[in-house]
């Protein structure tokens, strides 16, 4: 990649030199992009089908069963042998790679659920007969999206608060620091559990509640960086030029603080994912039925006779977290001037 700023270029080169981090970034990006298209990979509806010389796209459009000569006015259940027979008599269906969605219950199991891995369910099913692989794909997407939104939101708040504290100093800084000390000494996990029991937790509620506490991790870094920068000669020169405070903070000081911020971001993402997983594991997280790695871990604990549950959840979580840590390490090293200047 080419950058106009030589410093950025050197940092990018240094990042690329860290093979482990570079490949982790690639692997993570591929996995994440794939999981964004989870509906096309794991679904209980055909991707494309042809019925009576017409094309249908059940993944995107909802068709009532009556369209295909059935009896119900509700959306067709394409896994139902009766519906399947109706369609295949006069056309064909193209199924996704995994013909189950995260909430599809497989009623054709030969053994009681949880069923072990088989040709049908590659990683087996959970104790409600749902396909584990489909749930992991959807759960991966949900975890990463949750983590990303949480990271971006808490970075914005953290940078803003840290920048204001560091730039203005004095009483603002003092008051802010004392508030942070009180706020960060709260038992966060328990508070989140208590708060989630007041509301019906969904994605956005959980995000908001966790955001209450996760914005603090960046404040100290950014504040320290701004305190250091505000007496830099080029900042003083900008003030002497009459540049306004928000512009000085954004143009001259923020780029310095971004190094610390970017370095920290993969780790914030990581801890966001871990917190969500632990809430789900404890049963205080996302609403029942949502695809979640933590809930799968919980099932693994409850069904020790079905080791594929625990092992699958553990493997996918550890791969996800390890990739993020490797990326984070590479970013940290790339931004270290002693490394990229040598």
């Amino acid at each position, binding site marked *: 990649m080419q950058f106009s700023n030589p410093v950025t270029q050197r940092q990018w080169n240094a990042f690329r030199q860290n093979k482990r981090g570079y490949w982790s970034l690639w692997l993570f990006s591929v996995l994440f992009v794939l999981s964004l298209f989870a509906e096309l990979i794991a679904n209980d509806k055909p991707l494309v089908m042809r019925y009576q010389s017409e094309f249908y796209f059940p993944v995107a459009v909802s068709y009532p069963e009556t369209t295909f000569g059935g009896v119900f006015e509700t959306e067709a259940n394409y896994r139902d042998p009766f519906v399947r027979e109706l369609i295949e008599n006069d056309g064909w269906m193209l199924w996704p790679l995994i013909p189950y969605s995260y909430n599809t219950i497989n009623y054709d199991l030969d053994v009681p659920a949880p069923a072990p891995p088989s040709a049908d369910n590659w990683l087996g099913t959970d104790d409600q007969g749902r396909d584990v692989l489909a749930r992991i794909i959807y759960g991966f997407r949900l975890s990463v999206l949750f983590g990303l939104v949480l990271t971006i939101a808490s970075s914005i708040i953290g940078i803003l608060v840290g920048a204001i504290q560091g730039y203005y100093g004095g009483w603002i800084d003092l008051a802010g620091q004392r508030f942070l000390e009180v706020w960060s000494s709260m038992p966060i996990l328990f508070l989140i559990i208590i708060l989630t029991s007041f509301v019906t937790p969904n994605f956005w509620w959980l995000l908001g509640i966790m955001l209450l506490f996760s914005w603090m991790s960046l404040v100290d870094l950014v504040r320290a960086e701004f305190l250091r920068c505000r007496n830099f000669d080029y900042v003083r*020169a900008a003030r*002497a030029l009459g540049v306004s405070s928000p512009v000085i903070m954004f143009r001259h000081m923020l780029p310095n603080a971004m190094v610390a911020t970017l370095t920290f971001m993969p780790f914030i993402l990581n801890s966001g994912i871990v917190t969500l997983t632990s809430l789900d594991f404890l049963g205080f997280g996302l609403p029942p039925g949502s695809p979640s790695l933590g809930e799968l871990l919980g099932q693994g604990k409850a069904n020790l006779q079905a080791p594929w549950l625990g092992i699958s959840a553990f493997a996918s979580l550890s791969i996800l977290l390890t990739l993020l840590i490797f990326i984070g390490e590479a970013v940290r090293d790339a931004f270290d001037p002693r490394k990229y200047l040598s």
Partner: protein
Amino acid sequence: MSKVLDIRQLSVSFPGQAQPAVDNVSLSIGQGRMHALVGESGSGKSLTALSILKLLPPTADAHAEAIDFRDENIFVASEPRLRALRGAAISMIFQEPLSALNPLHKVEKQICEGILLHQKITPDAVRKRCLELLAKVQLPNPESLLNRYPHQLSGGQRQRVMIAMALANNPALLIADEPTTALDVTVQESILDLLKQLQRDLDLAVLLITHDLGIVQRYAEEVSVMRAGQIVEQGNTGEVLSAPQHEYTRHLIDSAPGGHAPTPQSGTNLLSVDELSVRFTQRQGMFARKSLFTAVDHASIEVPKGETLGIVGESGSGKSTLAMAILRLLGSEGRIRLGDTRLDQLTGDALRPQRRRMQVVFQDPYGTLNPRMTIGQIVAEGLQVHQPALSRAQRDEAVAAILREVGLDPDTRHRYPHEFSGGQRQRVAIARALILEPELLVLDEPTSALDRSVQHQVLELLRSLQQRHGLSYIFISHDLRVVRAISHKLVVMHEGRIVEQGDTERIFTAPEKPYTQRLIHAAFDETLKRA
């Protein structure tokens, strides 16, 4: 007179660099002599000194025919032998005494460590030796000093402790690497006087590394002039400096700040500051009583249009604080009048339009430019604030014009600061200030971080800009020679107060206050102190 040190054909190179950092350097020092190694930064002076004790960075590659120390070739000496020499027969003094002393150890421990390493003596004898050394470097109350930590000492005292440590084992050779660069002129003089006296009393050989020809002239018997790793001229100080053979030596001597400020055009006052004070509150802990520290105490100055007001003083005298208060970058009490505008009554948005009338150039050419912006963006920033109506093309044109004016190629405006040398960066900083066409330019030690010859060019530039645009300058410096070369009027500050002010030449030729006299004596005495 026997040779204590004799370096023959020393070369030091670094992998990946075509030019050797030190190139075939030979020099020798006799017993009881001081040999000065003078040159600009990056000329290889320090590397030459570090090679003597093999203290070079591990990537360096050194070659020499021989380095003889008292007839022993120490270039091929073993590591244990070198260790026995280091700090005992050959000792070093470094530039920055605060970082060369361990902040966690008391003075006694710092000095004793060196003694105990090389001599087997009883604790009582060590303590006695410490006191003796501290007395020798002329520190008052040696007894009480032994129990102090480095941060409790002043810069001059720390450097004296460093010298005491260096002398602890009766060395035959003392290497002083810019020993006074970080110190104020008057302290500088007393430290160098001390070194000279010790050289005489103890019959020491001293290798003095410096960039200051004034120091060489006053203290060293012999001199080697270095440039780009090579010694271009060597010999008796008096001969070399009075009749330099090599053009580089001549260039160094000529670039000593000289000449006078251009004659001003008018006599009206641009800036008048009346009874200005800056106070900082200091508190020890949350609930302790506040105490006030007065950084500038009732200072009154006037800057006429088109003239330069020099402000001199030692570090901590409040000269920069005064300037920052005038620029309204620091809160202050007292009246500040720029033209007809009372600046001290304006704040925030009302002050912003006034900012274009007064601009500032800072000391450190590396810190003054944002490394993430191009030269063009840096110079144009002020225009964006004060003339937002300008189109991109107009702005670009103005930037090119101002770069040409300060002697830079306008095509360089797309490059980033790290591609420029110190002198060029300082030109960019001047361009950034001038593009707003200010009436007053505050120059806060604009040449202190630059080598002599570059300093000379920057001063020339400032002079010609003043003449062309009728600018007024406030020129802050601790270097009296530079100030003399550019100022019409002079203010001498000491501990926050103005000690003396008046016409520059009057103060330099007939200083009235004892403090001013001392300052000027320390800077301009040019006779060689006899060993």
